[in-house]
């Protein structure tokens, strides 16, 4: 090697747009299969809204895994807590949710979101301290104990709200749909998409524009080096775990209103989708998580329309196909 090394041009850093194009390709492939353009628009919008909700709940979990290699199978519990908090808060504000005013309705949804996030965050803090911390670095124990934690959580939910499904009616002005030509766009999905975009924007801002975000991204790559630079990764991890729990709580509020009916097992049901999403995205990758969530949301809606019995299988098949193409997910994190 010579001094040329200093001047050696770097390989051109090309943006890897293939995974994003995959989302467009999936939508394009679905169009002729669905047949009707207006139905396709409706399904696509519904898929994007569902994808954004899944992104909100999965983004915290992918960072938790990336930072500390913690496999938290109990993440679904925070989603269920968010959904039940929404049912409780919105149930106690029935006058507000039944009002015909959009602003009054949103004024009821906002506290539901805040309470859902705060309670899920508080439970997340306790969950990390009591359940996760004793099993750092032990994957098998993490799987078993976090699943156990979620089962206990589900039983507590049954004790408090009962085992039967609870309806979670949408506020009055969020019901129904806008018509775009022949395509129906459900109003609530517009709200869900907007909330998802706000969360995405905030998350990307924190991760890319703040030192805290730098630390999180660096910690996902090489936590030992982050510690050697003088930062306490354990504190960072607890913060990310709680933030991830709060996001899951927010996602639970949105998911509950999306389904309009919630059961104590809701967390376990959504957990499957979360794991598919973070494996598609690449463990620890936020942008990968977004791509994975959008793919899963779209796939679920298209197959739900075309082949309802194959809905869950289609997402697993999608994951397998993507892992055959990119075994570490669409956007693997360097050094992992």
């Amino acid at each position, binding site marked *: *090697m*010579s*001094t*040329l*090394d*200093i*001047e*050696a041009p*770097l*390989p051109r*850093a090309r943006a890897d747009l293939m995974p994003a194009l995959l989302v467009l390709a999936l939508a394009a492939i679905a169009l002729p299969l669905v047949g009707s353009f207006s139905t396709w628009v409706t399904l696509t919008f519904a898929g994007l809204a569902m994808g954004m909700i899944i992104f909100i709940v999965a983004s915290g979990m992918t960072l938790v895994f990336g930072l500390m290699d913690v496999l938290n199978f109990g993440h679904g519990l925070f989603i269920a807590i968010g959904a039940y908090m929404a049912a409780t808060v919105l149930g106690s504000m029935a006058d507000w949710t039944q009002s015909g005013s959009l602003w009054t309705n949103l004024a009821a949804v906002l506290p539901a979101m805040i309470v859902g996030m705060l309670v899920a965050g508080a439970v997340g803090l306790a969950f990390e301290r009591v359940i996760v911390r004793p099993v750092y670095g032990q994957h098998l124990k993490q799987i078993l104990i976090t699943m156990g934690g979620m089962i206990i959580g589900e039983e507590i939910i049954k004790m408090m709200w009962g085992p039967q499904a609870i309806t979670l009616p949408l506020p009055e002005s969020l019901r129904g749909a806008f018509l775009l030509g022949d395509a129906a766009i459900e109003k609530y999905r517009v709200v869900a998409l907007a909330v998802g975009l706000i969360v995405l924007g905030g998350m990307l801002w924190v991760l890319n524009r703040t*030192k805290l975000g*730098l*630390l999180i*991204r*660096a910690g996902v*790559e*090489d936590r*030992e*080096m*982050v*510690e*050697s*630079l*003088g*930062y*306490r990764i354990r504190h960072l991890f607890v913060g990310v775990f709680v933030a991830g729990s709060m996001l899951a709580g927010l996602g639970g509020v949105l998911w509950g209103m999306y389904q309009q009916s919630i059961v104590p097992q809701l967390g376990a049901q959504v957990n499957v989708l979360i794991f598919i999403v973070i494996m598609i995205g690449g463990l620890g990758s936020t942008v990968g998580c977004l791509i994975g969530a959008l793919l899963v949301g779209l796939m679920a809606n298209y197959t739900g329309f075309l082949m309802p019995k194959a809905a869950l299988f289609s997402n697993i098949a999608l994951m397998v196909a993507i892992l055959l193409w990119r075994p570490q997910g669409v956007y693997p*994190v*360097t*050094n992992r």
Partner: protein
Amino acid sequence: MTVQPLLELKDVHTHIGAYHILHGINLSVPASAVTMLLGRNGAGKTTTLRTIMGLWRATQGQVCLDGTPIGGPGTRTSPPDMARMGMAYVPENMGIFGDLSVKENILLAARMARNAAQLDTARLEWIFGFFPALKKFWLHPAGKLSGGQKQMLAMARAIIEPRRLLLVDEPSKGLAPAIIQNMIDAFIELKQSSTTILLVEQNFNFARRVGDFAAIMDNGQVVHAGAMPELAEDEALQTRLLGLSLGSHQ
């Protein structure tokens, strides 16, 4: 030459799992000087640096900084504590964050700076003087740098703020000769600014040019410690302890 030690290892033992790697290290690292830690592959040099930094726990003995125990049984000092006490560590694999830009890597190492605007620009320019490639590729992803450029970045990260003690594992690895000279100049300037440096190195020519003191390790123990000029002139000692002579690396 008698120099007050900044760092002392007293009968330090380190186990990694079932393996007993360090077998009672005794080492004194003089303040404001460069000490070279030499030895064959597998002698325990990297383990010694990692034990000092707290990345692996000393199971017996004591690591002292300025006379205060910071490592060994009974101490609870972690790597972040070591960094806050003024220690910086450059691992053999460089520990570069490949998904982050060069700027972001440097910003993380400057704990006092909340954003790039708060970086000490004079110090940054001083570093760019040694490692100009970093200025050129300031906004590029660090993962795209060549091996030598990553080594420069790892060093730059370690010295972006004044440190009391630098622990560097094989700094010359993969570097072009011109950059090795710049690295040597950087170590000499750092030493003059009262920074204490402990280097693990396989390149004996580099070691001779940089080091004030040398400690040779074999089988998890320090088997020789003394002034570098003495070792550089004693080919019999080099051959006996290192299996090589500096003469063969001219």
